[in-house]
């Protein structure tokens, strides 16, 4: 029967791509369901080779686009070159309940792995132990030692350029050669080392290939990643995991497949398959499998299980404790400082580095760095540059020959560092289903309640202060602090909703990402997160996915999932 597979993977983004690769490589016939269109690597990167003058509006967003896409168009870097990889807000509405929440989505094969920021940082036991130590939320059911080999495993495939630093709070990984800092960043690094020995400025750890890797890349330093890279210079499902899955002969990829529910057999206590709605024909179709991986994104996966109602699970599949959808988190950012450096006017750089510098967390990591005003911590991304016409046009006075000459010359050196902070899990930050509003396929809209709270606000004050303090110590002038409060979701690091835990009464997933009580259903995207740490989360989703696939297949072989 063409409708039955060994495994079904729901979603083809960064974690779904990994599930597809791992399950296919382990010999399982695997159906990957993607709700959006297909995006073929290289062929469908339609803007990748366009020059600035090939775009109608100088890459700016039109008023019409802003009106039609009030959420997606707010994304940093959303422009004429990459907007095809974001959903249309009008076509894909959701409900903002208490507090604003920007839900940024890419409904296509590859999902947001096409447009992600590509920064890859490991978590450490500082993160995995924090909830238990502080009595916040629930304890993670895993520790660093459980995930470390899987970080190794995914890093070896992804290809991550980075610099080992030997920091316990930010473990080193398997790195390709690091990218270079520019002159001012190097100066900044030295100054910080001198003035703040406990703080470290390192080059970003990025899934951009600093040399050819597994048949992909290397990165060409065009800094046009979000258009899709025809060189395979960065990791995406499209460039990396899905082609490997396809090559096994075990992959069936079905775009335009919106999962309406996961089917459940109450006697076996197992998920038996899924019911989809074909996005184009609106036809309802069922597919069956022995094991199901749910990788439809934090809010997408949570919504699917909330929609999967049965007599046994009237509040959603596996939602026996009423906690499904709760403890939604996102990082908070856009707080830091910027400054100008007077000097080094004979220094410049060449190429466009698609990467930042990074200042790993230095607060609340031991007794000496403990804070009384907030828990957890933040890291900074930052970069130094010589201002170009884009920055200078607004500040250079006048016009005419002198203006033109200045505008087209390298401007002053400037730096900006921007903190990314951990957000604590709060029960009232949640995903639920709208009681009355439905999408065009008749499925209930996701409703999101979200707000940051005092721990985040206290952390922001400190992050702003520390940023300015470092820039001043490093000799920058005109140092100015900034704190642009953005809604939840704006960092596009939303996670939680189906947190992992040790106790089925207080969590949804166990330490192997299995849904408590439905052992053949694995959830390995951002929704599984028990806390948010402050590191960019995708690498951890990838490692958890590979780990769960390994476990799932070994359990399947033992007959424990049937």
């Amino acid at each position: 029967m063409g409708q039955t597979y060994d495994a079904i993977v729901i979603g083809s983004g960064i974690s779904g791509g990994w599930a597809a690769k791992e399950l296919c490589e382990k010999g399982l016939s695997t159906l990957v369901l993607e709700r959006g269109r297909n995006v073929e690597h290289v062929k469908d990167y339609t803007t990748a080779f366009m020059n600035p003058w090939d775009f109608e509006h100088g890459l700016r967003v039109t008023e019409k686009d802003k009106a039609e896409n009030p959420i997606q168009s707010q994304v940093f870097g959303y422009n004429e070159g990459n907007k095809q990889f974001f959903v249309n807000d009008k076509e894909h509405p959701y409900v903002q309940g208490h507090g604003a929440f920007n839900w940024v989505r890419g409904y296509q094969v590859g999902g947001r792995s096409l447009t992600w920021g590509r920064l890859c940082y490991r978590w450490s036991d500082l993160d995995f132990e924090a909830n238990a130590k502080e009595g916040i939320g629930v304890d993670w059911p895993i520790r660093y030692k459980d995930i470390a080999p899987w970080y190794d495993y995914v890093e070896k495939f992804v290809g991550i350029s980075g610099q080992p630093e030997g920091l316990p709070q930010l473990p080193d990984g398997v790195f390709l050669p690091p990218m270079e800092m520019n002159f001012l960043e190097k100066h900044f690094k030295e100054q910080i080392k001198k003035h703040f020995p406990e703080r470290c400025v390192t080059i970003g750890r990025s899934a951009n290939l600093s040399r050819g890797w597994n048949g992909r890349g290397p990165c060409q330093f065009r800094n046009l990643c979000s258009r899709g890279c025809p060189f395979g210079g960065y990791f995406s499902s499209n460039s990396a995991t899905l082609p490997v899955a396809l090559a096994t002969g075990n992959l069936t990829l079905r775009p335009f497949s919106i999962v309406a529910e996961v089917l459940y057999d109450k006697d076996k206590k197992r998920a038996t398959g899924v019911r989809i709605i074909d996005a184009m024909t609106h036809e309802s179709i069922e597919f069956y499998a022995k094991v199901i991986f749910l990788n439809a994104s934090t809010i997408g996966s949570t919504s699917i299980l909330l929609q999967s109602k049965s007599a046994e699970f009237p509040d959603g599949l596996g939602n026996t404790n009423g906690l499904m959808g709760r403890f939604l988190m996102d990082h908070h950012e856009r707080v830091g400082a910027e400054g100008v450096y007077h000097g080094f006017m004979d220094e410049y750089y060449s190429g466009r580095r698609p990467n930042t510098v990074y200042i790993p967390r230095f607060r609340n990591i031991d007794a000496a760095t403990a804070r009384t005003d907030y828990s957890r911590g933040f890291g900074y991304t930052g970069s130094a540059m010589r201002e170009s016409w884009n920055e200078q046009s607004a500040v250079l006075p006048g016009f005419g020959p002198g203006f033109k000459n200045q505008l087209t010359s390298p401007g002053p050196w400037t730096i900006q560092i921007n903190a990314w902070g951990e957000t604590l899990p709060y029960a009232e930050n949640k995903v639920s289903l709208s009681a009355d509003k439905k999408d065009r396929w008749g499925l209930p809209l996701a409703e999101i309640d979200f707000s940051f709270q005092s721990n985040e606000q206290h952390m922001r004050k400190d992050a702003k202060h520390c940023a300015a303090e470092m820039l001043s110590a490093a000799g920058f002038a005109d140092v100015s602090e900034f704190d642009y409060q953005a809604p939840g979701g704006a960092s596009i690091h939303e996670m939680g909703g189906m947190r992992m835990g040790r106790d089925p009464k207080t969590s949804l997933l166990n330490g192997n990402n299995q849904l408590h009580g439905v052992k053949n259903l694995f959830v390995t995207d951002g929704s599984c997160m028990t806390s948010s740490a402050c590191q960019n989360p995708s690498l951890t989703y990838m490692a958890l996915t590979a780990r769960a696939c390994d476990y799932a297949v070994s359990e399947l072989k033992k007959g424990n999932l049937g």
Partner: protein
Amino acid sequence: MHRRTAVKRLSLLAGGVLLSLGGIKYYQLHKVPDLSLLDKYRALLGDLSDTIIPASDSPGAKEAGVGDFVIKMVRDCTDRKSQNNFIGGLKDLAGYAQNKYGKSYGQCTVEERTEILSHFEKKAKSFSRLLGKVESKVEGDPFFVTLKNYVVLGYCTSKPGATQALRYDFIPGKYIGVVALTPGQRAWATE
């Protein structure tokens, strides 16, 4: 777009200060602008763009087609209030040239053109000083600010601007963090 520019731009969007505007002023800002008027000013916009970025050892903005670009941007990428300010500004400028020099802007000398545009730059500055950043969002951008922004954007993203006035490297292939600047070296066209 570079992150820094984006954050700066974000700051303009922040803050919910709303000025209460008088009835006539409110109408002038919010009325549906007659965008077809822009086509009437196509030649003027070419000349104005060339005053802002004239030809030197590289082509000027007029040759780079920036006048047409400005029209497209005012039509498609500009809020209604700034559109009204822009069309009003063009009318004012054409009138100012006639009144002061008895001829059209296009017939004016370089010196006269410079004087005319300086007048409108000063007007924009006093407007901004008076209102500050957040309030200027409420009243839209002044004519000169919109004009200059789009001339710069249009020129620096045009082929002549990017490849001749600036340096454009389509596929750098590598990143070198420390490079000595050579005298007269142009800035990179893209970040």
